[in-house]
């Protein structure tokens, strides 16, 4: 109880009904994911106290809202990054950055100005006016401003969606650096699954104002009957550990006791990374082929078979040795019949390509 972010909300916002009850851990990045209008942003605004809905919001042992109390926004130790950077135009970048820092309690100060400026690479912008920054730079400053208010929880409402592809690629590494260097838990609202795959540790899946599923990223992604798993572009995301790096640029990774080979020459043994395996990149074989250009042929147990339209099927596979590691394979109905695949059967998963979702 004490180490969770517990959120219960119920109420109407216009024509829209929200009814959710979930808890997420007090560390790492938790993504609130769902289609537009599913209530993600309303939840985030309620956590910040910008909306007032009936419910209860507890951050660890601190209760921000319940039946008796409603802590006003400015008394909640949180940082909020809006979709648009929303920097104050009448203040310089430096004044923007320290706006929250000046107002934070002395005892709470654990994030230093210089560290944040370095981490976000905004040192050269500091004396400029926010009006003369690019979109990516502005959003970095606004993230820095939120962090310097010394939050115990960082809320981010689609911080990347207003940026173009280039600015996104520019800013993502800073996100990963934040995650690696700061202990502040983050609630991230997103409707972009690739963003979630890359950044999130935990996933809260929402639809039409209701909770669909919530838990560690890889579990929620590949859960049976999840609408996500039925998408054509589905990819499983698995945590992995680098075992060794060979001279030819191939690294060996450990995933739940199974060994994966990946083309990546920048990894060091011991690094924690996450693998992204698309459902369309896995094919199924009965026996191990002696010779093939495919690097990864991993024994797998079939956990479930679901039909995908009239012509295809999605197989839920466990490729872990020590503990379950779930991926999905998309194959044709014809192959399914030809191979006569059954639940609980052992097969070989031939994985055509594996990519790194993020360096951790």
């Amino acid at each position: 109880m004490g180490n969770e972010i517990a959120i219960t909300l119920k109420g109407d916002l216009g024509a829209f009904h929200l009814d959710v009850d979930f808890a997420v851990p007090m560390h790492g990045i938790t993504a609130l994911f769902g289609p537009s209008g599913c209530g993600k942003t309303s939840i985030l605004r309620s956590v910040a106290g910008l909306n007032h809905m009936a419910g209860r919001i507890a951050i660890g042992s601190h209760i921000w809202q319940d039946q008796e109390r409603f802590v006003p926004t400015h008394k909640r130790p949180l940082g909020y990054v809006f979709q648009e950077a929303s920097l104050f135009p009448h203040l310089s970048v430096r004044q923007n950055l320290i706006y929250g820092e000046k107002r934070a309690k002395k005892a709470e100060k654990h994030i230093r100005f210089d560290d944040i400026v370095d981490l976000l690479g905004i040192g050269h912008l500091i004396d400029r006016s926010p009006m003369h920054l690019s979109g990516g730079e502005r959003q970095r400053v606004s993230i820095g401003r939120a962090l310097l208010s010394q939050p115990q929880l960082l809320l981010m409402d689609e911080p990347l969606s207003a940026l173009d592809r280039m600015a996104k690629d520019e800013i993502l590494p800073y996100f990963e650096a934040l995650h690696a260097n700061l202990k502040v838990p983050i609630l991230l609202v997103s409707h972009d699954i690739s963003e979630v795959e890359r950044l999130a540790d935990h996933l809260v899946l929402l639809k039409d104002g209701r909770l669909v599923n919530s838990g560690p990223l890889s579990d929620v992604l590949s859960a049976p009957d999840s609408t996500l798993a039925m998408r054509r572009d589905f990819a499983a995301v698995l945590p992995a550990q680098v075992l060794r790096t060979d001279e030819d640029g191939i690294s060996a990774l450990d995933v739940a006791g199974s060994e994966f080979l990946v083309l990546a020459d920048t990894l060091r043994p011991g690094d924690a990374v996450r693998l992204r395996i698309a459902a369309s990149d896995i094919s199924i074989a009965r026996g191990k082929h002696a010779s093939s250009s495919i690097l990864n042929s991993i024994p797998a147990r079939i956990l479930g078979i679901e039909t995908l339209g009239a012509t295809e099927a999605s197989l839920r596979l466990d490729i872990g040795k020590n503990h379950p590691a779930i991926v999905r394979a998309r194959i044709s109905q014809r192959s399914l019949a030809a191979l006569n695949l059954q639940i609980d059967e052992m097969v070989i998963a031939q994985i055509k390509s594996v990519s790194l979702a993020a360096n951790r």
Partner: protein
Amino acid sequence: MIIGTPIAWWLAWSKSRWKEVVATLVALPLVLPPTVLGFYILLALGPNGLGGWFGPWFGLRTFAFTFEGLVAGSVLYSMPFVVQPIRNAFEAIGARPLEVAATLRASPLDRFFTIALPLAIPGFLTGAVLGFAHTVGEFGVILMIGGNIPGETKVLSIAIYDFVETLRWREAHILSAGMLVFAFLVILTVSLLARRSGRRAF
């Protein structure tokens, strides 16, 4: 300004259904003939109205035909010119900067002074200039409640009127030209100030 700002703030953010009623009341002096307004203010300030209640506090029997009465009348009369630009400025800022400030731990008062006021400066300049200029130039209301007592409630615009009535063209010329130059300078100064702060007031 001091009375107008809170009204503008409330009009910009309130969701009350009285909002439009109050907005209409504030805007009334725009439409009413000054004499109508002056007549009601005269009644209100007189010994049988508010003036009779509050007058004794200032050692007066009534506010009508006094300098204090003139000031009160002018404030009411110029209210729409002050409230409208400030309200527009607050609305143009929108809720977002204030929400951002709230998530950065600024209390409501803090938000007002560090975010809303600086961002609304052009609106304040416009409001101040229009209010001031309008007060200097007003005629009808003053005539009704001021009574044109020399040294007490004689104002420039009425003085000019008197000079013209009595065919003293030279004095009328001097005062009129003075007002013309004065008005020009005030508006020019504010425009320059506004451009300096990066935005235009008009």
